[in-house]
């Protein structure tokens, strides 16, 4: 019930916006924020009521209603340790990004806010779907509001970025659609069905070779979303053009649709194929970590730097998900940490994009050379920027460290070579993020910033909302691991079982 509510509330909000007077922007702002806030409040009990004791049926708050009975398509929703925190992250970031748009968006506020709300529904839909058909619907639906947000409220090259975003993702999804239809048709071996638990329970019936093919089709779609090297070039373009809130949601949750779906769909549906594709995915992930960091190092545009840092950070997540030893044994530590790292990246990168937006609203430029030495002018902003940078660079005490360190440790236990290369990513990360800090905050004051004003109470509030969870996760990650672990354990054992079958 709670989950359905999470889907419906933003839609109600979006529809009700239609009836508000267009001129009253403040009312629209408040109205949209109220709905996202309510949705955030609704999502909180998911954590507090979550039953983390292991039981046979893995999904909590589940609801299964026949949707198209003749086709065995269900409205089946539910969550587990993989999705819980991503849902919280989504409701949280939605509220934040709506709030952060108050001062940034001035045209067609109504449409903008409606799209933000619809986007929230679509993303939550992906995270709670336990039916392949339902999932695909939300997956594609999430694309449209974001493309429109970039295309309408974006920067100078917004149309190019928007089209690029669509074509990349659509191209990726096309194969997945075909593969999904194959899986659906196969069903439980007798009847076609799109119910995920049923499909997973019968996945052993599909031959290994077939699984390899289908896995590839799914993973291609997901990898574009992540984005995994070399499928990432849509991301810098999209980020640079997107409005601040768009970037927050894009980096914060849309990218996680990819990695989440890898764990929710690709691995459980095709466990026999994981060992085959793992070396390639691990290699690309490690390349992404180093490549993203190196490219981030030489960007002139702050947003591009953060975008490339996302390529590196998401590389860590993919690495954590897919690393395995020669016998095909996964690392549960790396997997749990990868789930956590999705949340971490959402917080730290979301915060960085928000802070870049704060500067952009004041100076209308993201060029490093336009800044320099502004910490004296904006001490509060500077402090938050440094904290966000520390979170992003994986400094202990903050969230990023937990995920990165445990992913690397888990990786090392399975594939030391991959861990060796990936660990060098932390040097490059320090280099590019501190370069950004230095170019913006330090040095003699660039006179162009003489009139720069420090953050408003609203902006300080948003920054605190970002940074406090970062510290909480940094100090007490086990509150999250307690819930994440059973799900990753399931995944690991699924693969173990599949490996047994394969080796026979």
């Amino acid at each position, binding site marked *: 019930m709670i989950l359905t509510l999470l889907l419906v509330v933003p839609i109600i909000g979006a529809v009700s916006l239609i009836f508000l007077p267009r001129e009253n922007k403040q009312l629209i702002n408040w109205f949209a924020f109220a709905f996202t806030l309510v949705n955030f409040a609704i999502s909180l009990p998911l954590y507090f009521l979550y039953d983390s004791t292991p039981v046979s049926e893995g999904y909590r708050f589940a609801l299964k209603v026949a949707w198209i009975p003749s086709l065995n398509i269900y409205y089946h929703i539910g969550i587990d340790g993989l999705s819980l925190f991503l849902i919280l992250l989504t409701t949280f970031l939605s509220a934040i990004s709506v709030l952060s748009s108050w001062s940034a968006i001035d045209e067609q506020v109504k449409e903008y806010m409606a799209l933000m709300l619809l986007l929230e529904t679509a993303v939550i839909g992906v995270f709670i779907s336990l039916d392949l058909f339902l999932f695909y619907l939300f997956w*594609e639906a999430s694309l*449209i509001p974001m493309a429109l947000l970039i295309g309408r409220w974006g920067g100078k090259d917004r149309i190019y970025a928007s*089209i*690029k975003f*669509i*074509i*990349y993702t*659509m191209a990726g999804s096309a194969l997945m*659609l*075909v593969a999904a*239809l*194959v899986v659906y*048709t196969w069903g439980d071996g007798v009847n076609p069905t799109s119910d995920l638990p049923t499909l997973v329970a019968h996945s052993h019936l599909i*031959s290994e070779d*077939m699984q390899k093919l289908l896995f590839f089709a799914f993973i291609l779609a997901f990898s574009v979303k992540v984005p995994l090297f*070399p499928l990432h*070039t*849509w991301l*810098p373009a999209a980020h640079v053009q997107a409005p601040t809130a768009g970037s927050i949601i894009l980096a914060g949750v849309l990218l996680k649709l990819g990695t989440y779906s890898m764990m929710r769909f690709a691995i459980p549906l095709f466990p026999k194929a994981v060992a085959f594709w793992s070396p390639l995915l691990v290699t690309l992930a490690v390349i992404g970590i180093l*490549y993203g960091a*190196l*490219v981030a*190092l*030489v960007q002139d545009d702050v947003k591009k730097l953060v975008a490339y840092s996302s390529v590196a950070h998401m590389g860590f997540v993919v690495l954590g998900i897919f690393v395995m030893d020669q016998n095909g044994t996964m690392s*549960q*530590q790396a997997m*749990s940490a990868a789930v956590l790292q999705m949340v971490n990246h959402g917080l730290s990168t979301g915060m960085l994009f928000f802070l870049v937006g704060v500067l952009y609203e004041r100076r209308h430029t993201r060029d490093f050379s336009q800044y320099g*030495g502004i*910490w*004296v002018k904006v001490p509060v902003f500077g402090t938050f920027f440094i904290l966000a940078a520390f979170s992003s660079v994986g*400094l*202990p*005490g903050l969230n990023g*460290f*937990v995920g990165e*360190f*445990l992913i*690397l*440790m888990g990786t*090392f236990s399975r594939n030391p070579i991959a*861990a*060796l290369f990936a*660990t*060098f990513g*932390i*040097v490059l990360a*320090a280099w590019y993020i*501190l*370069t950004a800090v230095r170019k913006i*905050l*330090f*040095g*003699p*004051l660039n006179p162009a910033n003489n009139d720069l004003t420090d953050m408003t109470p609203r902006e300080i509030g948003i920054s605190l909302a970002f940074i406090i969870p970062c510290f909480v996760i940094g100090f*007490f*990650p*086990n509150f999250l*691991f*307690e819930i994440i*672990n059973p799900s990753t354990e399931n995944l690991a054992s699924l693969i173990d079982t599949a490996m047994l079958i394969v080796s026979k």
Partner: protein
Amino acid sequence: MIGNWQSVIDKQRMTNLIWLVIALPLAGALFNGIFGRRVGYQVVAKVAPTMVFLAFLIGLGGAFETYARHGKAQLVTLWTWAEIGELNIPISFLVDPLSMTMVLVITGVGFLIHIYATDYMVHHHHGETHPDRDFARFFTFLNLFIASMLVLVLGDNYLMMFIGWELVGACSYLLIGFWHDRGDDPQPAIEIEGGEAVQVAPLLSPAASGMKAFVVNRIGDVGFALGVFLIWTTFGTLQFDQLFSRIASSAEMYRESALHGEFTVISMIALLLFIGAMGKSAQIPLYVWLPDAMAGPTPVSALIHAATMVTAGIYMIVRSNIIYTSAPNVSFLVAMVGALTAFFAATIALVQVDLKRVLAYSTVSQLGYMFMAVGVGAYTAGMFHLVTHAFFKACLFLGAGSVMHALGDVIDIRRMGGLRKKMPHTAMTFYLGGLALAGFPLTAGFFSKDEILAKTFEYSPMLWGIGIVTAGMTAFYTFRAIFLAFEGEPRDQELYDHAHENRLAVTAPLWILAVLAIFGGLLGLPAPLLHGVGIDIPHAMENWLHPVIQQVGHHEVHHLPFITELALFLISGFLGVASIGLAYYFYIVDRSIPQNLARSTHPIFALLVNKYYIDELYNTVFVKPALTLSNTMSRGIDQTLIDGIVDGSAYGIAELGKYLSQLQNGFISRYALATFIGVLFLVGYFFLGGQFPNWIY
């Protein structure tokens, strides 16, 4: 009465409260960070040192209780940090002689430096006081550093050590770059009478220096992290007690294999952890950040870049002593790197004209000594030198800061001279600290250095040779700096006239540290030597740390013959005195000698002044290629190759689309509709008779 004491000790109150040692400075940092600007600098100046002092008191209590339970280690566990599968990492603290030694040094010296800084960070002008613009921020970072450093030394597993390890690096970054809006600082060339002047590279800006420190340290951290991963993968635990007892059970075996030329997993762990130590403790090849770290305020140099943080590598090795004892091959490498660093840095210190940089290279050099000590297995000697070095080097840095404060931030010794008359307390304490650094007989530095040299001689006379030559250079460059700064005629009359002795908040810590620098040797009197002349005074440090150092096998403890001990003792004592005499002759009696020497050995002199051009080398070999690679990737691969393919295929499709332009009107909803229709067709195909070919199944 004694019964009462016993019951107090039995309760282990302070031990169980040990987390407060960290929490108090952390609370101070939070308070000053959030309210510091509003409450005014006087409040900040009281809160920050008070927190460190309270931590010091608790540390004293903990140390006392540790002593009372004969050095037995005690665990204080707070909460579970992470538990995934077989991995379980608690947040827990280890109270034992080693951690308590570090806690007392950190909070004790730290407290003195906090007090000093309350005045150092204030400028006095004609009776008016102007606190630094970011006074509160300074003490926020300083308190945060103390808390982080305490996490490093109190943590009872390698993860917590790594957490502290990274956090002190971050604090160091923030504090080096404290005056973040300052630019690079050009330096005048060094003039040589009758010779060609030697150009001096500009000093890196504080912001750039901080960043350099962080990034170079992270290179070391990669090694450290990989070491931690390897520990976990091999032994399944990161907890000290579990891990060390597991290693101890087969330490003999590891040791034997390593001695037979095998590179065991323990050797690998030792090597990886040592790479971390090279970064944090500024050893070859990762020492390059430390001299530039002098861009930070001087109390920072004293606290972080001399007394505490840079010794983390020594602490790590002493803590992991069983690992290093089981890996004699890596231990030898540690000793070699230490010896070479000690020598190499000392040669650079001979010719530097920046008082703080002389001290910085001296720190690199003295850390090299400590590594030499722990490398040859003299863990106690290494810790002993760590403690005495904290006293005398903090004293010297604070003295240099006192001079800077008096001269309006001038730190170039070419502009000093004769300052002793103006600043008697600073001069006196600087002399005392200098004597300890120079290893003048019976000072603290003399005993600790002598012990290292004696232990090294036992291990390898060759290493001892490097050590003793370095000791001579150390005494020389120390007193070169002292004589140039405090004696002779003022070389910049205007500055000289301006100079004045500092206030009590500055001179009191100087005196306390100076006294410790002289008498700190009592912590480790040379027991074998004294025994030889019929006096039985134990080596306090050795007894205290004994429970921490694990013995591998039952090797005969064979001391050097008394006569050798005595000879070494006399040689190093004599050398210290002689080198001071030489410096006196060079810089007081006949100042033309160093000038002539610089002229006749011009290339070598220029090489030393320019620090062997190592920074330039690293820039050419590492930094620039990395940036070139980055640019190539960004332009070549991302924008040209990948996007070329993507945009190319998009263009191709667009061309195709022109044929279908009736269907295409630019609205995304149409695309969505088209997709949807396509899906329907596909679905329909499969259900209305369409079937997959058989090979699919």
